[in-house]
């Protein structure tokens, strides 16, 4: 089937393959200004712990190279920059100029300028050389990518042999009794919160829907295997609401 004939999930909606990137871009342009505040409100601050845990897995040392894909406002990139130090190098990439701009400002405000670069790039076609990063992270970005397999292959390509990919993403709750509460919160509270704080209920409804349409833990693990990663594993956080998937280029 030609790409032009294919459709893809955009939340619970099916949209033509070529339209998803543009619509995702529109969602994030709309929420970029209040993104960090909304993250804190929506997760009760837990997103900081999830990101802290992800950063604890990188194994990065001073002088190494790291890439944060779909890095948005730069939470993970900031942590990566601290880990690799002044002698290292971090690339923050995002497909959305507004989010990337907010991330760049934040990194500069935190004192990181010389060893951090910001790149407006599509995760499916990363404009980076092969075998160039010791660690690649993607935090809450993979579910918004149109072709996830292409994005995983692209990230595999830019990793050095022995390098690690870390995918932090919403997943399927596994803790008993959590799912109905989580559903009620996602579809009842989240869009209202988006309306009150960011004045954009539709974008936050999309966020909740896109989480439901994202592959569950085991499916995503299989996708990492198919992309060529070895030593693949995942860790459930907060009862499986979020999971960190890991794989190495061996």
């Amino acid at each position, binding site marked *: 089937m030609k790409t032009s004939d294919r459709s893809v999930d955009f939340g619970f909606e099916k949209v033509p393959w070529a339209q998803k990137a543009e619509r995702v871009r529109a969602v994030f342009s709309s929420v970029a200004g209040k993104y960090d505040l909304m993250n804190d409100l929506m997760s009760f601050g837990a997103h900081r712990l999830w990101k802290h845990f992800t950063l604890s897995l990188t194994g990065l040392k001073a002088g190494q190279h790291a890439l944060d894909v779909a890095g948005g406002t730069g939470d993970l990139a900031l942590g990566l920059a601290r880990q690799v130090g002044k002698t290292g190098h971090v690339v923050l990439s995002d497909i959305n100029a507004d989010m990337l701009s907010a991330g760049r400002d934040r990194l500069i405000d935190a004192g990181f300028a010389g060893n951090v670069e910001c790149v407006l790039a599509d995760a499916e076609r990363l404009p980076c050389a092969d075998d160039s990063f010791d660690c690649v992270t993607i935090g809450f970005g993979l579910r918004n990518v149109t072709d996830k397999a292409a994005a995983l292959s692209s990230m595999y390509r830019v990793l050095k042999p022995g390098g690690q990919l870390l995918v932090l993403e919403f997943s399927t709750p596994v803790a008993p009794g959590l799912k109905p509460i989580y559903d009620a919160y996602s579809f009842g509270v989240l869009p209202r919160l988006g309306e009150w704080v960011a004045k954009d209920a539709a974008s936050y409804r999309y966020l909740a829907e896109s989480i439901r349409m994202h592959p569950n833990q085991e499916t995503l693990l299989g996708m990492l295997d198919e992309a060529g990663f070895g*030593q693949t594993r995942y860790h*459930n956080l907060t009862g499986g609401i979020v999971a960190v998937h890991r794989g190495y280029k*061996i």
Partner: protein
Amino acid sequence: MPATPVWLAAIESLLNRGIDQSLRARAAAGRLNGTSLELRIAGLAPIRIAAFSGRLALASGGGSGARTAGTDPAAVIAGAPLALLDLFARREDSSAPRGSERVRISGDAEVAARYRELLELARPDWEEELSRLIGDLPARRLSLVARAALSWARGFARSAQANVAEYLQEESRALVSKPEVEEFLGQVDALRETADRVEARIARLERRLGGRREIEGSA
């Protein structure tokens, strides 16, 4: 494949940091590249430890999804949690007896021994790890307090053991003391030797009496 618990990821990060900090550990990890070891701890899901690219990956459920480490581990170590802790915690030069009778090792024993050596070399420096979280000075203070508490606990355990033993042996007389047992065993040995000698003498007398009867009968 089940999810790998967060605590296992924390241990993996600590071990890999330990490997990075030691040349010997890096060399040991390099020698184990492409192999894996399975830990079967009673009451827990199996843990697969795989070595690749000079680092370790820990996964639960016995399957690590590792393409390079193969599907079967090179060695399996099984046992109770305390016995395994005892096995990995003791140093090579320790004269204390190992809890090996409570630990079962199957598969390639050399690989198992190399993993044990690597885990010992990559053992985290707890004070250093604590200092990452709370800073150098508080970590040093806490470490000193923890050492003092541990030392006090060991001293308390030793004196409590001695007091209980003394009460049972000397006051309640429920148990006998070691010198008494040794004296009793010495007396038993002496009695056994005396009985053996008496038995030998009786046998010799019987032989003599038997010979005399034969001579008188033939006369």
